[in-house]
Every structure is written in structure tokens, then in C-alpha cells.
């Protein structure tokens, strides 16, 4: 072989260089070329990237198959708050209400045309420019106008004809006679401490309570079985809310009942003391004797724990009663309080659930 015959010493530097280069190239080729061909072939044939998957990314997009979750692993029904922008009016609308909004927005629905016609009619009548279109749309969008229309109509027809407040006499007199069949479902709104509130849909301007002056004993008794009865300081009228009305306390209710329907022994003091809004101590003593009577046992079951004895239970008559003391015309009530004995039976008439335990107590008293 030629190579064996050669000796390195016989060569000059350039040739040595060349030989070294060649050897080097061979070595590099040996190590790299095979790999290069592999990769080249893989890329060309298309299988180079086949197994190259990113496990984290795979996990992100994995399909979830569990009850209660969708395939993305999310809980159902969390998309209620999605919003979109209406292409017509450029307002932000809740996605689930987009279709009804768009219908009105484009003026397509039956209601939309009705409203539009009405508006046109109104503007013709009032000679107004229709600049309030936007407002009307606002109203429409909330569906509130429809609701309020319906509600307004409904209210007018919904008045309870049996309600004592509906009685015509109410509007004209200061006081009125309460229907003995006063139902305990009087849906009345009025503010606390007797402030007249005209949010009452039935639009009673005069009184939102009952004047007890003209009430007969039976009426009072029956009234007190169904209504709160606490007398407002301002209007001097009895509260007609339910027996559990939150604006007055049970103490107040008890006090009122004692006042009206308590044992006759109380009467003299009651009469005198009722001039002012605060209780005199003498009165309190008299009333204390009537403490056995639980004025309205249907107030709450916890109230029924009143004792039978005549102990001074310290109901705080002073504090409570000061708010709800009666006015001048108290003498007429004397007759009322005298006939307190029928109270127990009245209680039985009460439709409200908690069975009054005190009738038995009361019976004992009497």
C-alpha cells in the first residue's frame, strides 16, 4: 500500500496539513453524517416530529369525563354573567338576554311595534319631539315598564273589598267603624311610629291606622285578636298590621291589650293615666296586677311563658307604653276594659297557628 511506503518525515508541511485535514474531515464525517442522514430522511419522510408531543400542553387540552363537569373540567351553569355588545345600539347586554333585546332594538317584536305606535300617538297628541326614544328603549330593555304596567293594573283590581280601609266611611271620617270581619290579611304598608306613608297602593290619605275611639267593645276585642293594635304616638291610631308586625314589640301589644281588655279592676287608674303618653307609677301598679294576662299569646311561643301569678314581672311597661299611650278620649274605653273576660274565648278565635296556652291561664284568673 502506498501509505505504508510513505514516511511522514519525507513530507513537507503543506502536505502534512492536507493529510491532517483529510483525517479530520473523515473523523467529523464519521461522527456526524450518519446522524444528518437520519434526520434528513425523517424530515423528508415526514415522521421526524411524530412522537414529539409536549406533555404539559397535552394535559391542558385533555378531555374531562366526569359527572357534573364539562369536557374542559368546568362546572355547569357558570356562564350566566356573559355579556356582549349589541351591534345595533352598541350597548352591553347580557348574552342570555341578547335575542329579546335585539328584537326590541330592531323594532321587530309585537311589543315593540305597539310601543312605537303608542309613542307616535303620544307625540302627536302632545306635540313633542321623539327624543325620548332612547329612554323608552331603556325601559323596554328592563322589562320593567311591562311589569309596572301589569302591576299597576293588577293593583287596582286587587284591592280587598273587605278591607276596613276600603270602607268609604274611612275616607270621610276621622274614625270609622271597623268591620268585625276584619281579616287578618290586611296588606298595608305604613312606616313605623305612625308616620303616614303614602306608598300605600290603596292610596289612603287619611289614616293608616284605626281610630279606636269609635270602636265598640266587641269590635275592639276582635280587632285585637287579629291585629297588632299598638297605638301610634303620632296618629293615635291602632296599628292594623299583623300580630307579629315588626314595627311594634310584643310588650307594646300586651300593653294595649291590657289597656283595652284587661281586668276591670284597673279601670280607674287607667282612665286618669291615659291623659299623657307616659305611665304614672300608680298606673303601673294597677296594671301589674293584670300581668297575668298575656295580652297576645299568639305573638310568639316564647311569650306564653308569662306566669300565672301576679308577680311583678317587670315588663317594662313604662318604657314600652310611653310610646303607645292613648289620647284624651279614654273614658269611653272604660266599658271596654270592663269586659275583659271574654278575651280567652277571643283568643281561640285566632286563626294564627301558635295555639295560645294562656287561655287556660286566663281562665284561671277569671
Amino acid at each position, binding site marked *: 500500500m502506498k501509505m505504508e511506503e510513505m514516511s511522514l518525515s519525507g513530507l513537507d508541511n503543506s502536505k502534512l496539513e492536507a493529510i491532517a485535514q483529510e483525517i479530520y474531515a473523515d473523523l467529523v464525517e464519521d461522527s456526524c453524517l*450518519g446522524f444528518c442522514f437520519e434526520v434528513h430522511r425523517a424530515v423528508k419522510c415526514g415522521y421526524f416530529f411524530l412522537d414529539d408531543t*409536549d406533555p404539559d400542553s*397535552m394535559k391542558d387540552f*385533555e378531555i374531562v369525563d366526569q359527572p357534573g363537569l364539562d369536557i*374542559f373540567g368546568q362546572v355547569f351553569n357558570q*356562564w350566566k354573567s356573559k355579556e356582549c355588545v349589541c351591534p345595533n345600539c352598541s350597548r352591553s347586554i347580557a348574552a342570555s338576554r*341578547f335575542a329579546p333585546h335585539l328584537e326590541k332594538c330592531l323594532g321587530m317584536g309585537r311589543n315593540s311595534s305597539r310601543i312605537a305606535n303608542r309613542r307616535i300617538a303620544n307625540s302627536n297628541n302632545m306635540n313633542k319631539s321623539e327624543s325620548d326614544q332612547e329612554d323608552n328603549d331603556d325601559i323596554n330593555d328592563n322589562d320593567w315598564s311591562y311589569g309596572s304596567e301589569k302591576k299597576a293594573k293588577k293593583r287596582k283590581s286587587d284591592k280587598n273589598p273587605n278591607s276596613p280601609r276600603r270602607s268609604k266611611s274611612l275616607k270621610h271620617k276621622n274614625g270609622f267603624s271597623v268591620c268585625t270581619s276584619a281579616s287578618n290579611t290586611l296588606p298595608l304598608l305604613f312606616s313605623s311610629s305612625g308616620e303616614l306613608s303614602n306608598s300605600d297602593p290603596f292610596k289612603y290619605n287619611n289614616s293608616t291606622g284605626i281610630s279606636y275611639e269609635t270602636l265598640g267593645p266587641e269590635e275592639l276585642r276582635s280587632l285585637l285578636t287579629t291585629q297588632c293594635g299598638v297605638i301610634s304616638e303620632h296618629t293615635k291610631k291602632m296599628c292594623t298590621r299583623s300580630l307579629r308586625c315588626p314595627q311594634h314589640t310584643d310588650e307594646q301589644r300586651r300593653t294595649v291589650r291590657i289597656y283595652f281588655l284587661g281586668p276591670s279592676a284597673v279601670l280607674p287608674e287607667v282612665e286618669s293615666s291615659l291623659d299623657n303618653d307616659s305611665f304614672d307609677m300608680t298606673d303601673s301598679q294597677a296594671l301589674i296586677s293584670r300581668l297575668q294576662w298575656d295580652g297576645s299569646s299568639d305573638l310568639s311561643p316564647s311569650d306564653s311563658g308569662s306566669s300565672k301569678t301576679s308577680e311583678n314581672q317587670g315588663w317594662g311597661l313604662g318604657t314600652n307604653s310611653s310610646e303607645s299611650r292613648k289620647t284624651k278620649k279614654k273614658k269611653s274605653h272604660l266599658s271596654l276594659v270592663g269586659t275583659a273576660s271574654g278575651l280567652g274565648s277571643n283568643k281561640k278565635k285566632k286563626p294564627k297557628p301558635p295555639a295560645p296556652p294562656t287561655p287556660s291561664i286566663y281562665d284561671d284568673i277569671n
Partner: protein
Amino acid sequence: MCKDYVYDKDIEQIAKETKEKILRLTSTSTDVSHQQFMTSGIEDKQSTCETKEQEPKLVKPKKKRRKKSVYTVGLRGLINLGNTCFMNCIVQALTHIPLLKDFFLSDKHKCIMTSPSLCLVCEMSSLFHAMYSGSRTPHIPYKLLHLIWIHAEHLAGYRQQDAHEFLIAILDVLHRHSKDDSGVQEANNPNCCNCIIDQIFTGGLQSDVTCQACHSVSTTIDPCWDISLDLPGSCATFDSQNPERADGTVSRDDHIPGIPSLTDCLQWFTRPEHLGSSAKIKCNSCQSYQESTKQLTMKKLPIVACFHLKRFEHVGKQRRKINTFISFPLELDMTPFLASTKESRMKGGQPPADCVPNENKYSLFAVINHHGTLESGHYTSFIRQQKDQWFNCDDAIITKATIEDLLYSEGYLLFYHKQGLEKD
């Protein structure tokens, strides 16, 4: 010229086969040591480069690639905008047509409308992009709804609507807005549009009216986007127990004894119908009014065949929903219902054997179901991803579904895709 190395597919195949032969030879050799030597030798040769795993890793780009087998890209919920479940189901079905997906995701649509914001095809394109974005929150298709209301006024309005009606309407608007994406206009046939919608959905329904007197046949071919099928139990009823089996070679993949199948419905659809003496048609050849029979067959099969089961019946003032369960197959062969099949049958021969056997085979990829009554109901859909993964789409909620869930569902709109043109 470029001195690149080329790997010819056939030669690769030969090389692969040769390698396998060698391996087989070595494995059959009884001489263990010889075997070991041979295998190790081959392994050495192969592994000189491959064992160095680190090298390939260094060369490969750091892309995040995912195996397509089970993953959620391509599935996305749709928010119900207020009684729009019918629209959501149709959108789910349309966005899972592979050809349509390829068309839109490769931005092949060129808008021809004067204002692109009103173009429904542009909106479909962005819808496809949204559905395949990989986002997990449901999409809000309010723009689509708005455009549909603008372009298809009979659908405008906040109320429950029919999914089939919506499908026809949206295809119509898409067709009108596409006009001719391929750029080729056939001047001689103005009805022939080559837009993507027509390419995918339009089939040809052939109607043959045969005069009973002279037996001449008058043929018309109407384009159709779907096939509406009568159901047993409807007024146009047929007895599924004794279907008219003119063709005994019908393959019955969906046949459950006693239960009507989609194939039964199709057979009823393509039956020869005697038009009766009250509907005499003037025959052109014998120039007289004669009784005739009419038969429908498929002249041209679309790429995507949509079957509409007529579950909503209007008889006079009576309207009702027909809840009869119809079984439907995962794979459907439309050969028996072709016009060509009928013709060759009439000529007394076998169906033409020269056609590629798979040409008329379809596979199910979407089912839209209606739950409820005629007055008030809800639409949900089953969608297929990959070859056999099914998902239930209920507005914004997508869950995995089993094949049983699918096959026992009532079925209202059935979408089949021609085999061979699917990617998966």
C-alpha cells in the same frame, strides 16, 4: 440540480420490507449466538445514530405539539342567547364538517359583499376561528344571530324556532353571499354555482314520472340540500314491518327488528308512488292525460348528506310531534337509493360494479335532537370528533357521550359525511 437527497417512497417501502425480512430471518435462526450477533449487528448499525437521543432533541424545534387523539380543540360551547338552542346545534354541526373547516381555517373565503360586516360568510369564517381557537369558555354567537335576522327575515324574532328551517336559511344566505369563490363561472348554467356550500351540500334529486299508458319517463333533477323523510306513524305513513323491499341487497346496518330504521325511511322515500286518478299528468309522448307513477332517487350525492326526519306534523289545524324512535346507523350506504341503481335494476342487471365500492358510503358525524313538545322544547346535538369520539353539546355545556347515548337518541337531523373525504 439542488443536490438534495431524495427519498423515494417506493424505495423506502422496499428498504423497509427488506429490513423486515432480515429481522425475520434472524429471529428464525436457531443459533442463538448467531442470532445475537446478527441482531446486535443490525442494531448497531441502526443505533449508531439513533441511540444518541439527545442529538435529535437539540435539533428539534421547541414547539408544543399535541397528539390529536383525545383533546378538546375543536369543541367549544355556545351561549344560548334566548331560545337560540336551535341555532347553536346547527352551528355545532356545521363547524364539524371537515371540508368546511379546512376551507375557512385556510382563509379561502374572498368576500364579495360591499360591506364585509354584513357578509355572513365572513362571520362564519370568524366563527370557525373562534370554535377552533382552543378557548374553553363558550362562544357568544350574537353577531351570527344579528346577521341571520337581517338576511333571513322570516327567522327574525325572539321565539323558539325549527332547526331544520334555520339550516336551510343559513345555507341559503351563505350561498348567496359566496356566489362563486372558486372564480369559475359557468355561463351556460346560471344555476350552477361552485361555491363551497354547493360543493358540500348540494345533491341532485331525480324525479321520474312514468306515464302508465306509454311508459315514457319524464325526468327532472332538482338540487337539494337535505332529504326530508316521512316517518311511520305520520299521515304519510308506511308500515315499517313490511317495508317495500324492491332491492334485496340493501345493507341494513341499522336494522333492529320491529323498530323502523333510517333505511326504511329512505326506502319509503324512493318508492314508486302511484299518483292516482285525481292527479293525471299530461304525458308528452302520447299527448294524453294519464295516470302515472312518480319515483324519487338520488342522481347526485352530496358530500354532506343531511336527513331531516319529519317529526312535526301539521294536519289541518292539528299539529303534533311524532316521537317514534327511528334507528340510524353509524355508516350508511346510499347505493340502493341512487338513480343509477334503479336504472340498472330496471334494465334487469346488477348494480354497476365498476364504481368504487366506497363511493356511496357515508359516516355519521352529527345528530341534532329535539326534546319536548311542539310548542316548547330544547335542541341538543351529538358531535363526532376523530373517528369514534362523540360529544353531547347542550348550548354552553359539552360533555363526553357514549355511542349508546347517541344511537338511542330520538334523532331529528342526521348529518352524514362521505367517506374517503374525511381526514380522520
